[in-house]
């Protein structure tokens, strides 16, 4: 479906070489490859349902096989894989419930293979392909696809596909997140689609070739065998289904699945008013390697049942921090699927029927070869970008399905992978990332708080593993691992908080730690509709800290506060840098909290009291952010709360300026009738056949519906660090750009309508404009 509405100059430049691969409307497949195109004239509705269920279960077995055989912690806990079943021409019918953006790009690998491998060396029964090419289908080179055509009576019937993260695939940095790579030539090697098996016999030379690049070749080989075993399992399951229901029946059910899901998704999208939604996030600040910020943009124009997406406005590709079309597109597909099609068994072909893409290349999100791609500094803020853009749109959903699932950004908005390497007590070299970046919070949604340490929307089946799991795998000792107080973004609905942990080297030699993160102070854990950003992660470090003396004294630090009291201040760790982790060195990391939703001053005081009583919100934040004053028994002091809230509102007026950039707004229009909510605190109203955007609390009209309402707000601009230094670290530590937060208030009632993170000199961005 890609490229249908892409302008003609994309043509075949987008072939997966210099530019990423975008499939044309008509694939160029060698005529010698016979495709199975037959469908039943009439599909029994019960058979349809049974076949659909059987495909879903076959795909689950495929994934389970990979997990079991590979046994990699990254897959078992991190769930960093997925599998899919595609039609003969590469339309994805069903995906598993694991990492969503893997399978949202599966069609690209299959379509490229059909176009460029069907001619030479040909595609035959018994072939299994392997690829990790970011310009075709990979977020970065770790994420390796293994996929195979399934033939029936000599014709290509369908494809089975998996993609999984490998812990090390080579390149200049251990763990293959090559922050020191400035281009692809210092990155891990890229393998475009090659045959891993012929006639179902695995080519051991290919496994050797691939694993030879890795620092952990045994693990790579085991994992690859897991994916091959998964392919075999999926093939057997599919042949079983075809044998029972007939090839024509199964193919009809596959097509019907796409048709029906597409119809449902279309109906849901029709209930969203037409308009344009945009989201900007920044990333960057990776210490000495790069002290600048980089803008990423996602814009969705929605008309009827169609979404046209572009990254226009994103800044150019840079150093190690790039992505390619496959991941940019698939993140948007995954977000639309999660918000509008979460009950459709991840039928991404159906989602794609409602999406078109206008990529701007040579950007950080859609980079050209030979950019470096392995470290994926763009990827995590892009998770925020896509979920925020789609959720902003879903907030105006009149049908309710999308609105109920909309949420801000949270877990994984910043990278925060920790890679520990060294020699363990048994003399064995170890090098592994932990999956504890999943200990982030899930953001708030409409009418609900976020989920504390709820992991990431894009990896809905991932977890962190136990402390004991990581201590048995790596030469470290955890001092504490706990939920972070005040880690969730403030709002009427609070973002889920994240976790923080402290480790020291333990019974190893030459232990090193590298935190693969951009600077968390450039916050991408943004909330919605006036909700404030969550804590975006931070890493700190102290060498020769004296911790062993503390432990010998019988004391175990329980928290950040304890550490400070016992060891003094810790320095912020330079992003992406490698630190020694000897037995007396302490490393502390916290993960991304979820953004809030709505104005914190509208939060129920009783909810704030509960948050404080369980220790996840401090009395200080309750007072400063929500204006809730509590007694020593954690009861709401109603009178003081009322006056504190009034004072905070008054302070908003003092600390903000009226933009008043547009003549005639803000204003009051008597008799304006509300048509629908466009966010929880803004609505579209109508008067005299004209439509406007108005504050839902006080009915102040802020703009024409097609204009930027923010231009009529009062705005307060300050660094997040100034807003709350305890929660938000300072941008200036690792970035030279002036990245600030803008708090937009209703000029009349001072409700907090929106919070943006941007550069000081950015124009006022428009979240939405109705068409």
């Amino acid at each position, binding site marked *: 479906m890609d490229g249908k509405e892409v302008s003609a100059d994309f043509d075949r430049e987008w072939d997966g070489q210099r530019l990423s691969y975008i499939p044309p409307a008509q694939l160029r497949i060698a005529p010698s490859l016979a495709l199975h195109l037959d469908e039943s004239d009439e599909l029994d*509705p*019960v058979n349809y349902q*049974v076949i*659909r*269920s059987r495909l879903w*279960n076959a795909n*689950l*077995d495929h994934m*389970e*096989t990979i997990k*079991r055989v*590979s*046994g*990699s912690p990254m897959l*078992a*806990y991190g769930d960093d894989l997925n599998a899919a079943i595609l039609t003969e021409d590469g339309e994805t019918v069903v995906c598993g419930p694991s990492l969503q953006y893997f399978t949202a790009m599966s069609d690209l690998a299959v379509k490229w293979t059909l176009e460029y491998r069907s001619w030479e060396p040909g595609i035959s029964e018994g072939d299994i392909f392997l690829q990790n090419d970011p310009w075709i289908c990979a977020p970065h080179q770790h994420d390796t696809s293994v996929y195979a055509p399934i033939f029936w009576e000599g014709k290509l019937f369908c494809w089975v596909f998996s993609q999984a993260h490998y812990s090390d695939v080579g390149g200049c940095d251990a763990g293959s997140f090559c922050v020191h790579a400035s281009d692809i030539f210092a990155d891990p090697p890229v393998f475009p689609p090659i045959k891993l098996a012929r006639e179902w016999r695995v080519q051991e030379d290919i496994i050797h070739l691939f694993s030879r690049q890795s620092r952990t070749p*045994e693990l790579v080989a*085991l994992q690859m065998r897991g994916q091959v*075993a998964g392919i*075999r399992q999926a093939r057997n399951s599919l042949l079983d289904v075809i044998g029972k229901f007939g090839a024509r029946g199964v193919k009809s059910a596959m097509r019907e699945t796409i048709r029906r899901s597409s119809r*449902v998704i279309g*109906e849901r999208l029709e209930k969203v008013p037409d308009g344009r939604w945009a989201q900007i996030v920044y990333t960057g600040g990776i210490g000495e390697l790069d002290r600048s910020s980089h803008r990423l943009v996602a814009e969705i124009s929605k008309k009827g049942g169609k979404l046209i997406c572009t990254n226009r406005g994103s800044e150019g590709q840079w150093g190690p921090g790039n992505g390619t079309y496959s991941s940019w597109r698939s993140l948007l597909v995954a977000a639309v699927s*999660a918000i509008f099609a979460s*009950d*459709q*068994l*991840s039928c991404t072909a159906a989602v794609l029927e409602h999406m078109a893409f206008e990529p701007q290349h040579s950007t950080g999100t859609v980079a050209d070869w030979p950019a470096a791609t392995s470290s994926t500094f763009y990827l995590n803020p892009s998770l925020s970008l896509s979920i925020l853009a789609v959720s902003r749109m879903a907030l105006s959903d009149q049908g309710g399905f999308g609105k*109920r699932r909309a949420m801000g950004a949270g877990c994984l908005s910043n990278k925060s992978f920790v890679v520990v390497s060294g020699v363990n007590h048994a003399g064995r070299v170890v090098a592994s990332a932990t999956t504890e970046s999943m*200990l*982030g919070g*899930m953001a708030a*949604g409409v009418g609900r708080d976020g*989920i504390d*340490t*709820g992991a990431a*929307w894009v990896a*809905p*089946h991932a*977890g*962190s*593993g*136990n*402390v004991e*799991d990581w*201590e048995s795998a790596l030469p470290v*000792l*955890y001092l504490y*691992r*706990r*939920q972070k107080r005040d880690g969730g973004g403030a709002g009427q609905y609070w973002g889920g908080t994240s*976790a923080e942990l402290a480790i020291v080297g333990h019974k190893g030699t030459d232990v090193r730690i590298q935190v693969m993160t951009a600077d968390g102070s450039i916050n991408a854990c943004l909330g919605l509709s006036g909700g404030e950003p969550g804590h975006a992660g931070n890493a700190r470090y102290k060498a020769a800290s004296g911790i062993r003396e503390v*432990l010998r004294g*019988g*004391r*175990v*630090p*329980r928290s950040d506060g304890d550490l400070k009291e016992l060891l003094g201040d810790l320095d912020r760790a330079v992003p992406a840098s490698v630190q020694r982790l000897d037995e007396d060195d302490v490393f502390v990391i916290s993960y991304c909290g979820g953004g809030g939703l709505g104005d914190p001053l509208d939060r129920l005081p009783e909810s704030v009291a509960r948050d404080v*009583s*369980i*220790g996840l919100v401090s009395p200080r934040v309750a007072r400063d952010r929500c204006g809730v004053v509590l007694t020593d028994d954690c009861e709401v002091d109603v009178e003081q709360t009322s006056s504190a809230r009034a004072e905070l509102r008054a302070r908003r007026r003092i600390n903000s300026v009226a933009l008043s950039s547009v003549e005639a707004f803000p204003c009051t229009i008597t008799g304006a009738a509300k048509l629908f909510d466009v966010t929880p605190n803004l609505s579209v109203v109508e008067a005299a056949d004209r439509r406007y955007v108005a504050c839902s609390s006080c009915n102040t009209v802020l703009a024409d519906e097609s204009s930027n309402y923010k231009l009529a707000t009062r705005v307060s601009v300050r660094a997040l660090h100034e807003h709350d230094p305890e929660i938000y670290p300072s941008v200036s530590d690792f970035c030279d750009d002036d990245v600030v937060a803008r708090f937009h208030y209703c000029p009349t009632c001072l409700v907090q309508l929106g919070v943006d993170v941007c550069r000081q000199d950015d124009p006022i961005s428009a979240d939405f404009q109705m068409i």
Partner: protein
Amino acid sequence: MYPDAAPVSPDRCSIGVDIGGTFTDCVIVSAKGALTHGKAFTRPEDRARSVFEAVEAAAQSWNLTAEAVLSGASRLVHGTTTGTNVIVSRAGARVGLVTTAGHADSAFIMNAAGRYAGVPPERIIGSWVEEQPVPFVERSLVREVDERIDAHGDIVVPLDVEAVRHAVKDLVARGAESIAISFLWSTRNASHETAALRVAQSVDSQLFVSVGSALSARAGEFERTSVALVNAYVGPVMRRYLDGFESSLRRIGVEQPPLYVQCSGGAITPPEAWLAPIRTVHSGPVAGVAAAAFLGTAIGRHDVLVADMGGTSLDVCVIRDGVPLERVTSIIEGQELSLPMIDIQSIGAGGGSVAWLDETGGLNVGPMSVGADPGPACYGRGGVEATVTDADVVLGFIDPDSFFGGTVQLDRTAAESVIRRLAQEVGLSVVETAAGISRVTDANIADLIKRAMFAAGLDPRSVSCVAYGGGGPVHASSFAPDGGLSEVIVPLMDVAPTFSAFGASLADVSHFYEEAVDIELPHMVSAIVAPMRELGERVVKTLLFEGFDADEISVQRFLRVKHRAQIYDIVVPLSAGVWDRLDGKEVAREFSRLYESRFGEGSGNEASGIQITGLVVKGIGKSDEPFTLHEAARVPADQLVVEPRDVYWHELGRFTKTPVSRLATMVPDGVIHGPHLLQLPNTVIVVRPGQSCEFDPFGNAVLTVRN
């Protein structure tokens, strides 16, 4: 099927009791192998009384009293839902948790997996809008104490004993009714937990204290803490129940202490149930699996798929080589627990499961259920949803006049009416829609069976399905072949309606001891000998203490083995007599063989290293003569009362006059060819077109259902 004209002696009989939600079932097996059974209504407020009433009901057929049978019994094995009910209804104790400093939040972090633990895969995407699981401890009742043991079992920070004392006192003062103690790496060195236990007991000797390392030997602090918490949560209620039950027994002169069915199979003694009541959860379904395993072995079927189809769900469990498969962790109420359990998987495919259309127009069944009240529309109690049972009535499988032995009259018109509404939406006739409901249900079950077979590494063609529960015999002939199985066995022994109680009566006392290790193969294999010997001595000592003679004790040994780089291990059984002189290369080869049989040829990779992660010893105390099946009374097939009935067979696409044979006390000789229905008092065995049914010597219906 076990007529016993002569008076039956109660001496040394075995009694199995299963307390279900509605009925309490009892099976009594005499020393000579005679068998009887009975039922009583479950009294939620006094379950012990239900037990006596069920025993009474069973004993009556032998003209005996409950007291006589209980006094004479060599054992009373008891499966109870008390613990499960406490958990599900959240009616347990307020628990206080004492844990390692810095790790108090483990129970709340849930390894970031709490959102989806136990959630069906199709509901995981978007699951952030669902209710989140509620931990079994309140945050205000968690206390951290200074102590730290590392991954090697070495003490990094000694236990602050006074801090434990202070924490326990404080927790009790704040309302904690029981205490869970769980420290990091207590599996490698339990000294801190043991010391903390002593301190807690010194604070209050009556306090229920649950200790992580006593419940689990596996690494993973979240799952171990969870099992300690849930154990503490059910502990006080269970102790009251056990106390009441055992003292009632003593009052009537029963000296022999009862046994309790445990969730990992076998039975445990009162002291063990007293310490670890969590082990009694889900004992009813587990006892049913035990009965199926016994039956399978008795008739030469060693690989069995158990399918128990009830009103709200269907449970399946795989028995491989006569042994029910086990899982090392369990998910209870959204919490993952380090609690070994017979691996029973459920889906919402019971008689009361509701049929509905999704937004795409697809016909779905379950997981929602109408429950017992109002029940399916055909019950005539106000049900308005179309259910599986309604479909079975419309299709003619269930005779409205013969339901529950004719004691409940079903309303076919009401069933047609609710299905008609669905039919109009889906665009099919009423009968086609009913057939669709039935087929979708069976296909869902077949999908579950395929996944279970796959996970077990079994070829389904060589596996027999043992089907029971009200709906099992009705649907097994459809879902079993669809799942790849070729044989269905419906247990027709007298005990079929009380199958779980029968399983309980068979349970032997079992103890599992496990130790976590890190031993590299092949060269370090000798390192297992000393700890394995110690585990074996412990288990034998325990069984001797419990009163078993040496010749009644058997010991089995297993290794948990994995590729070094992997997370998951598999169990490698060790042959008796050679475990202390193993060849490391042979163990590695056996591991690779088992591994490839599970995951496919070429899936292993010895080059990555092979590691033993755990030593497991299972001790079994068996004091009774093994029960043997008796031959069933038979009747010539041509003497069966046969009444034809219109039944819709979807494979024929029409209603067909189908013979219906009523079975009561005897089973027919010869082969019965489908289509045919075999009407039993509480269910009906469906033999589909092209299938056949014979009865084995013991009265079990054996259907050949090859697809």
